């Protein structure tokens, strides 16, 4: 089951650049939350703080409190534990090129030392079915490299890979921006189904996409969160002038 996330006074820096400024936000469990805003506004940095990927960059730094349920992710656990509970799908599909489709999906378990064949088989099948890829790849799971799939299939495989470690939260950083419309709509259908079981945070440049998949939407601008509300309100009756300008295409 998913878990809600409470963000309090989150600040983040890259070197001396203050990328995120005083972000406060509650992401509800088992819902999809979209983050929109122009390029460079801090959306990606924000989701990377949620699974502590931000700190893999040696010049990056973050302060503030992020609570996943009762767990303070910066105090109560190591980054490795957090990343197992908060899965991530990246902007461009990033399969492991030397691994088969099966090994790609099982990698989160295998690379953490998990060896039980029967459970691995079951997990790979379940994850690929969840990612709506099973029917397309079931015949050459172990024969083909993950890199031999098409872009859209690779991205669904990456989603399956993230789901295989059974996370509570799924972060998606523009998961469909490198894909064609058909693959995009498949991924959106997927998000729709997955949010009953996971808490989903999706960064997107595509406002229709945010409107289609997310219950709540946050608008980021220049490192600040300008507005956060139900998607319906953000797109029909935003409180802030800047939000309105952005969603109506007057800037950004």
């Amino acid at each position: 089951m998913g878990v809600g996330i409470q963000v309090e006074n989150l600040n983040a820096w890259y070197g001396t650049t203050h990328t995120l400024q005083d972000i406060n936000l509650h992401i509800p469990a088992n819902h999809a939350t979209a983050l929109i805003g122009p390029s460079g506004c801090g959306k990606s940095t924000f989701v990377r703080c949620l699974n502590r990927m931000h700190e893999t960059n040696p010049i990056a730094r973050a302060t503030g409190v992020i609570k996943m349920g009762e767990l303070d992710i910066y105090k109560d656990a190591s980054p490795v534990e957090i990343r197992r509970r908060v899965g991530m799908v990246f902007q461009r599909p990033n399969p492991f090129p030397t691994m088969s489709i099966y090994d790609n999906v099982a990698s989160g378990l295998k690379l953490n030392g998990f060896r039980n064949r029967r459970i691995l088989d079951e997990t790979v099948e379940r994850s690929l079915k969840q990612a709506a890829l099973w029917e397309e790849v079931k015949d050459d799971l172990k024969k083909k490299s993950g890199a031999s799939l098409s872009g859209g299939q690779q991205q669904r495989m990456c989603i399956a890979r993230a789901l295989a470690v059974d996370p509570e939260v799924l972060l998606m950083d523009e998961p469909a921006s490198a894909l064609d419309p058909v693959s995009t709509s498949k991924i959106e259908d997927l998000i729709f189904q997955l949010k009953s079981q996971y808490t989903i945070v999706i960064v997107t440049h595509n406002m229709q996409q945010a409107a289609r998949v997310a219950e709540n939407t946050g608008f980021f601008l220049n490192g600040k969160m300008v507005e956060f509300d139900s998607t319906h309100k953000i797109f029909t009756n935003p409180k802030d002038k800047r939000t309105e300008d952005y969603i109506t295409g007057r800037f950004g």
Partner: protein
Amino acid sequence: MSTLPLSPNPLRTPAKPSVINTLRRQAMNHVITGLSILSTVVVIAPLVAILVYLIYKGASSLNLAFFTHIPAPVGEQGGGMANSIVGSGIILFLASLMGIPIGISAGVYLAEFGRGSFLGNAIRFTADVLNGVPSIVMGISIYSLIVMQQKHFSALAGGIALAIMMVPTITRTTEEMLATVPHAIREAALGLGVPKWRTVLSVSLRTASPGIITGCMLAFARVAGETAPLLFTAFGNQFWSFKLNEPIAALPLQIYVYAISPYDEWHRLAWAGSLVLIVMIMVAVTLVRIFANRGVLKGAS
């Protein structure tokens, strides 16, 4: 303010390409292709020439005895280089056993952990300098550091000398190959909750492995023919020796001894030994390639 007249874009293609331009482009294409082929031939020609000449000079002296007998005393006919072939194998095995793990580990440190650090830069600089150290200097260094201390020549000293020569090549290739692994792939592993050390071993190194193997093979092939570092370390031996702390025979040393001798029979054996050395290096490199390519999946990049 008057508007400036627009100058015609000189790069814009006219509606119909002129015949002269088309011909010039095609001619240029042929010239460049021809030059590329020529350069390839110039590079490969010496290699083929050496191989052909070695076969011409050495093949006739090759027989079963060459691979099964030890050198015959001066004045006697026959004899072979069996002990040198085995000795070279032992020294190269020792050198690879020490040089490859150290070289790869140092390369991993440079690429994954020590980027931009003082220690990293120091190691990189040292490796580059070490790469340029003449092999005879390496021989003398190991002679004073190990042979003088132990008070005898040994296979182990030879192995260490060659291992040190292998390290810089392997380190720098490993570092460069790891640098070509896309950052996105590392992030994928870290994002799954895989610890950094495991990411390096199972993702970065595995993705870069074809290039790293090539680097190891280059280093191996380079030291396999080295004579100078072995002169003062392994020393050479006319008899069988399998002990690591005794002087041991090696093909390049035996070739050297035979080639500078005054006897025709020994000259012929030196040619045969050279041929065997080259063929052995080629076989070793090919075997590793075949072995490394096993299990590569369909569509893997």
